[in-house]
């Protein structure tokens, strides 16, 4: 009996260690973002210091960071919007009107994820150069639509499949047409999971790095690229500014943590019943 209790205690300690490892590095980065350089470059880590807002002021005042932020918002926003507008109906059609190609269509959508990003980015760079669209927001939006569209479809098919068929059947008996059923019945019922799918697509393109690195050089640079350039600065590194820019980059995705964890919950809850 006591062995079991001891085991439980050890297990809990391990869990706390894991939780600590999940949170602390991020917390430490946040703390450093509020430090002056002298408080970061110390032989022993400092927990108590006079906080400063200089780093954030500097980062937000820098033109490159601000431009990157705007580019990221426009490119991610537009590609997610297009992905959702086209992807949600497509997912519904796959979930509700299965035919002999449905499996192949689903596999095709998934297989896009197998493509190494490098393999897409190199030819796209040449293509956009030839079109004169290299390093523009438009070319980035089109490229990212490939990612958002595939992701939205992939995650929304199960969400639509979980809508009870009886509800849609009842609506049909009441004289609803197929389009009315989609817009007035299926979409509202599946809404929570669908928001999760769209949020996931947003986080994916917001965080995307390799393609943006290859397809932009100045005008359309997204925030991850700008932040990574800051981290490559030479010896006399402005650590506080770096930490602040990383914090700035990480805030939007972390805002969606609740939505994404909700999506995870509903994906598994329904499976049991």
């Amino acid at each position, binding site marked *: 009996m006591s062995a079991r209790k001891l085991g439980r205690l050890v297990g809990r300690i391990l869990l706390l260690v*894991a939780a600590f490892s999940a949170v602390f590095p991020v917390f430490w980065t946040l703390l450093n973002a509020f430090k002056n350089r002298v408080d*970061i470059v110390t032989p022993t880590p400092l927990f108590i210091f006079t906080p400063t807002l200089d780093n954030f002021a500097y980062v937000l005042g820098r033109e490159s960071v601000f431009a990157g932020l705007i580019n990221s918002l426009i490119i991610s926003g537009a590609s997610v919007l297009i992905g959702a507008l086209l992807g949600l109906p*497509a997912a519904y059609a796959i979930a509700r009107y299965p035919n002999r190609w449905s499996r192949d269509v689903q596999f095709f959508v998934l297989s896009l994820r*197998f493509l190494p990003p490098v393999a897409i980015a190199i030819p796209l760079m*040449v293509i956009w150069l030839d079109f004169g669209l290299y390093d523009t927001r438009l070319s980035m939006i089109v490229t990212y639509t*490939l990612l958002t569209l595939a992701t939205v479809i992939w995650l929304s098919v199960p969400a639509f499949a979980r809508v009870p068929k009886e509800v849609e059947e009842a609506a049909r008996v009441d004289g609803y047409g197929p389009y009315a059923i989609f817009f007035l019945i299926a979409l509202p019922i599946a809404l929570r999971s669908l928001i999760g799918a769209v949020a996931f697509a947003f*986080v994916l393109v917001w965080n995307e790095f390799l393609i943006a690195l290859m397809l932009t050089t100045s005008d359309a640079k997204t925030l991850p690229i700008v932040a990574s350039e800051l981290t490559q600065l030479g010896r006399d590194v402005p650590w506080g500014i770096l930490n602040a820019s990383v914090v700035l980059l*990480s805030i939007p995705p*972390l805002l969606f943590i609740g939505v994404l964890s909700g999506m*995870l919950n509903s994906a598994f809850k329904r499976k049991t019943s």
Partner: protein
Amino acid sequence: MKQKNSLPAIFLTPAMMILAVLALVPTVYAIYISLQNRELSRPDGDFVGLANYIDLFSDRRFINAIGVSLTWEAVTVGMTLIVAVGLGILLFECASPRMRNILALLFLMPVILPRVSAAFVWKFAFHPLYGIATYPYKAITGQPLDLLSNPATALATVALVDVWQWGLFFSVIVLKLLQTLPPQPFEAARLDHARTWETYTHIAIPMLKAPLISLAFVKMIESLRAFDLIYVMTRGGPGITTETLDMYAFSQGFIESGRISYASSMAVLMMIATSIVFTFIWKRVQ
């Protein structure tokens, strides 16, 4: 009876057309470029047939990159699953429902972070002089610890960040999977005085074999996207010890020589290899 209606065609066609164009055009173009000798500085190239591909096989850096990529896949997929199953069981076994919810949220955080952020957070934590993770070592031994510049530890250190992101996330999924299992087999085993770990190795994990294999599959695909972490943390160094295939293709195509055709032939080989392997695994999993 299903009457004919226009919805499937109207809903599906635009999305599929766009996906097909956006996926096929670059793919075909990648093959087309790989048969030429184009360089960034010289937009027009001549057809050289399979010369790029033949060169690849005598390129020792390419062979090295294959080895690094395969090691990376094996280490990150294996470690992620071990961490996920271990922590998932602990969450299921030792945590109260409230604690589970809080921990699940915390464990989700690393994977949602942009990889560039995660890479920087840890790059700074491993900084030999000011890093918080290397500080205990420095305090005890008085020596700085430089894991990222040491050829023996660099790849493992970057892999640690990947496992930090994915292992914690997958442990939450393992927890949810365990919660979907029926309780009867566990109770029966408990009545037979099975030890706790035996109920997992003999009952729970075999019952979850299929979803765990799917998780491994997802992780294999995601591990192909190692570039961001490696680019920010080591740039393929020290030397070429952490240079994966995508890192090498990138430096051939962009940084060093701008040999897009050569880089493209590498990308085509990667595309073929991953498509074959993953299609094969996918058909087996289904």
